[in-house]
C-alpha cells in the first residue's frame, strides 16, 4: 500500500477524527459514583445551545470552513463522511461542556451563564483558528479546575477536618443552594482525559479537509506580516 501524506491525512480525517470525537461524546457525560458505579448523563439542553454557539465560532474563526467540508465538489461518500465528522464534533463539544458543568443546583446555572456569556461575547470578536483554540483551552481549563479540583475537593466525602469546615462554611454561605454531588476521584481523571482528547481532536481538524498539513503554519506566519510585507510576498509569489 502506498503511504503518502495525503492518504495519512485522509485516514486521520475519515477514521480517527470521528472516533475521537465520539469517544469524547461517550466519556463527557460519564461520572463514577462514590460506590464506583458508572453514571452516564446525557447532554443537558443548555450544553446543546453552547455547542451550537461554539460551532458558529468554529466557522467564524475559520477552524472549520463549511463550504470546503461539504459541497457538490465532493462525492456522496465524502460528503456523508465529512457530515458525520462534523456531527460528532458538535456532540463532542456538547459533552465537553457537560463534563465540566456541575450537575445540579445554583452552580450549574452559574457555570452555564459563564459559558454562555463568554461564547456570546466571542461571537463578536475577531478570531483566527489558533486564537480560538487557545481561548477554548483556557475556558475549559478554568471550568475543569473550578469543578473537579475546587468544588470536587469541597464535596468529597470524609477528608480532613479543615476540609469539612470549609465545606460546611461553603454550604452555609450559599444557604444550601450550591448542591454538589459527591463523586469518586476517577470522575476528575475521566474529565481530564476527555478534555485532552477534545483539544487534540480540535487541533487535528483542518479548516479545509484537503489542505496539506504544512500550509497552516505558513498561513499563521503570514498573518503576522505587516501590510507592506504581505504585498511584497504576494508580488514575489505572482512573479514565480
Amino acid at each position: 500500500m502506498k503511504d503518502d501524506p495525503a492518504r495519512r491525512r485522509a485516514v486521520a480525517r475519515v477514521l480517527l477524527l470521528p472516533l475521537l470525537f465520539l469517544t469524547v461524546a461517550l466519556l463527557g457525560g460519564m461520572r463514577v459514583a462514590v460506590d464506583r458505579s458508572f453514571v452516564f448523563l446525557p447532554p443537558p439542553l443548555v450544553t446543546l445551545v453552547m455547542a451550537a454557539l461554539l460551532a458558529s465560532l468554529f466557522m467564524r474563526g475559520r477552524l472549520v470552513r463549511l463550504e470546503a467540508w461539504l459541497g457538490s465538489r465532493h462525492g456522496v461518500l465524502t460528503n456523508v463522511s465529512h457530515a458525520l465528522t462534523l456531527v460528532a464534533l458538535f456532540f463532542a463539544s456538547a459533552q465537553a461542556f457537560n463534563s465540566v458543568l456541575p450537575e445540579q443546583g445554583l452552580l450549574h446555572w452559574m457555570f452555564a451563564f459563564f459559558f454562555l456569556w463568554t461564547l456570546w461575547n466571542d461571537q463578536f470578536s475577531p478570531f483566527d483558528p489558533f486564537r480560538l483554540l487557545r481561548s477554548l483551552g483556557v475556558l475549559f481549563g478554568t471550568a475543569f479546575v473550578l469543578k473537579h479540583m475546587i468544588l470536587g475537593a469541597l464535596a468529597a466525602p470524609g477528608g480532613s477536618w479543615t476540609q469539612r469546615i470549609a465545606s460546611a462554611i461553603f454550604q452555609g454561605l450559599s444557604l444550601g443552594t450550591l448542591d454538589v454531588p459527591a463523586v469518586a476521584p476517577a470522575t476528575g481523571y475521566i474529565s481530564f482525559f476527555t478534555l485532552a482528547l477534545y483539544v487534540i481532536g480540535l487541533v487535528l481538524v483542518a479548516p479545509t479537509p484537503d489542505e496539506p498539513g504544512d500550509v497552516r503554519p505558513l498561513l499563521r506566519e503570514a498573518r503576522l506580516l505587516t501590510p507592506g510585507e504581505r504585498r511584497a510576498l504576494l508580488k514575489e509569489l505572482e512573479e514565480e
Partner: protein
Amino acid sequence: MRYPLLHATGITATLLYAGFVVWVYATQPRTLKDVTQGARVAAGAYAVDAARYDTALSLFHRGLFRAAREEWERADPARADARTQFYIAYAFYREGWGRLYHDDALYGQGLQAVDRALALTPAGSLIVADPDLKMHTAAELKAELEKGREKTWSDLNPLRVLEERK
C-alpha cells in the same frame, strides 16, 4: 472521488461507534460487567446459567421463594430472559400472598419483574407450562398482582380467607 473504500470504512465505523454510544446512554450500565453483558444480549450471544436456573426452580417448588429469586437473579444477571423474569415475578407473588392480606411491597416488585418479562416477549405470548403453577401466562400473573394491590371493599369480605393461592 479519492479513497472510496476508506470513506466507506470510516462511515461504517463511525455509525457503529455512534450506535454503541447511544446504546450506553440508553441502557445506563453501572459496571464494565454490565457493558459486556449488555453487548452479549444485543449480539444475541446471551444465555442464562442453566445450572443456577434449575437450582432456583427446585428451590421455588420447595417453597423457598426468596432463595429461588436470588438464584434466578444470578442465573440471569442482565434480566434479559423472559421465562426467568416470569418465575421471579411468580416467586414475589407466592411470597407476598397471604390469606388475610397481601404484601404490597413484594407484589410491587413482582409487577416490575412481570413487566420485564412482558417487555422481553413483544408478541406477549409467554406461556410457561409448569404443572406446579396455576397461572401459565405473564398476562394472568400481572392481572393477579395488580388485583392484589388494589384496595376495594371486597377486601373486607370474610369469605376471602377461603381464596386459594395460585
